[in-house]
């Protein structure tokens, strides 16, 4: 019963057992049919409420206000020429980039501080630091609005106590921009902290010990061990946050509703004002669509980097 069988017999039986193969295929087919059926609700949901609206948005954005005639790229050209929309683009980018950078830095510092303290105490500190993330954003922004109130501002009361004049928090363009960013950083930093903390914990202690024996100091450990090991999580966290921040609606809508002089409008709030409040649905759709290439661009590069690094580690 030695070797020697293999190929010739295999070829022979392949022809002879055609019927058998068919029934096996049916067997496999039944399995993938069930698999497909289990995914069907998901597919229908995404197709109806994500894919279809996305395609429909493109069509909508090419109609005139009454949605009677096709205007091609007219809405996009109109928007780009409009000063308000140029402000929207600028503010969206400023808001997203500044907020994400601040959140990333503060989150990183917090994660390191948390990592320094003993594990059994981490729970309570983590619990307290996560509170801004847990309160629904629309509700906590209301509190911020109240704290920035022109006549009752609690911040101004503190400033006045120190002899500093009241600040018109939401009344002056650049200050209002600063306020929207502050609220976003307050809300989003805990998310970064939690992600980084998870990443820090996943770096094996032996790497630090090996680095210490190789003579690395604290800064070198940070740059040559911690950061490289965390690169993927940093990239993904930044991507998630960049998208959410870029597309933010709640903060700007509640805090300033785009004012003063449209200086704090971002894509989402402007689309809401144009599309829903003023009833120019095609223009609103065109406005929203401007977000898509920017988000897709960011997602593409971040995810490509992540998959490449994952492959490197695997290889």
């Amino acid at each position, binding site marked *: 019963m030695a070797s020697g069988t293999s190929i010739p017999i295999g070829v022979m039986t392949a022809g002879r057992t055609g019927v058998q193969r068919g029934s096996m295929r049916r067997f496999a087919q039944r399995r*993938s049919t*069930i698999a497909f059926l289990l995914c069907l609700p998901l597919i229908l949901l995404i197709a109806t409420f*994500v894919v279809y609206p996305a395609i429909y948005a493109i069509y909508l954005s090419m109609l005139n206000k009454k949605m009677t005639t096709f205007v091609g790229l007219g809405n996009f050209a109109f928007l780009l020429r409009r000063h308000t929309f140029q402000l929207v683009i600028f503010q969206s980018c400023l808001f997203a980039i500044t907020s994400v950078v601040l959140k990333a830095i503060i989150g990183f510092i917090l994660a390191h501080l948390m990592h*320094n303290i003993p594990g059994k105490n981490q729970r309570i500190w983590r619990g307290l630091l996560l*509170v801004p993330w847990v*309160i629904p954003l629309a509700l906590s922004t209301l509190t911020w609005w109240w704290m920035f109130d022109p006549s*009752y501002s609690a911040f101004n009361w503190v400033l006045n106590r120190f002899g500093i004049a009241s600040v018109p928090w939401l009344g002056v363009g650049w200050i209002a921009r600063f306020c929207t960013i502050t609220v976003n950083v307050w809300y989003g930093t805990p998310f970064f902290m939690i992600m980084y903390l998870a990443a820090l914990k996943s770096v094996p202690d032996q790497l630090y010990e090996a680095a210490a024996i190789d003579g690395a100091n*604290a800064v070198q450990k940070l740059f040559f061990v911690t950061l490289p090991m965390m690169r993927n999580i940093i990239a993904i966290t930044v991507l998630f946050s960049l998208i959410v921040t870029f597309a933010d609606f709640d903060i700007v809508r509640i805090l300033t509703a785009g004012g003063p002089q449209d200086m704090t409008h971002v894509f989402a709030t402007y689309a*809401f004002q144009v599309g829903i409040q003023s009833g120019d649905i095609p223009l609103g759709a065109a406005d929203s669509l401007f977000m898509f290439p920017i988000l897709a661009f960011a997602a593409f590069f971040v995810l490509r980097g992540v998959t490449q690094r994952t492959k490197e580690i695997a290889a």
Partner: protein
Amino acid sequence: MSTSVATAGRRAPTTAHKHSLHRSRMWALWGSYIALGVFVIMFLIPPFYTLMTSLKSSAEISAQTGSPWIVHHPTLANFWYLITYPNFQRYYLNSIIVTVLTVAVSMVISVLAAFSLSRMGFWGSQTLSTGVFLTYLVPSSLLFIPLFQIVGWLGLINNFWCLVLLYPTLAVPFCTWIMIGYFSSIPKELDEAALIDGAGYLQILWKIFIPVAMPGIIAATIFAFTVAWGQFLYPLAYLYTSNQMVLTVGIISDLIRGDVFQWGKIMAACLLASLPPILIYAFLMDYYVAGLTAGATKG
């Protein structure tokens, strides 16, 4: 920190070395505590101020005497007003209905899909997994205008049932993604053992996968809950009468009438509306955190 350790070690015997190591660690520890304390205070200022304001009467707020950070004559009048206010009760009830249904629908869809995608597979299932992840990256503010038209065709403008239809699109992709991660971590032999024991695919899902992946299910449920409870844009865009509104928009549209801001009541309403997420967070913090980090650690 490490430089001082190095010099101490070079200079003298082990006792000194140990001592300085210990001391620099203590410094680092206390420094961390102090810095964390500062951050905690900064982070908790808004919730603290919410609480203070909610305990003030309108008279005390408008009087502007003394520090606004402290309540001088605490009163529960604002809370009592809201609890007995039919509109507020309506918002609360609507929020609960919408959230419970969204969570149920989202979890059924994502658990079924995640089981199929992580274990069974079919032609194109790889593409679908990637598609699910990309859908998660689509923010709600990207498509709310075409969805406004679609909701209109369905006759659901100003009807909170449109939220039950739309919220799952925000929750399902991430929940599916979390569940794929949890299901994939279950060893393959477990379903093979169940298969030999005589279980069908749905029995494997129901009797093995769901109980074993319970932490993941809880984490995904919490995520779906927070999404549905806190969403602001959709209800603001699609609902306009108070009998249909949910908490996030109801508070703003009802308690702000023109230029009259009833801040005490608004803050009390914010507190009451934040209560469910905060309670869930307080009792299930570990699952909450696991759900937050699951997305990235997998990717």
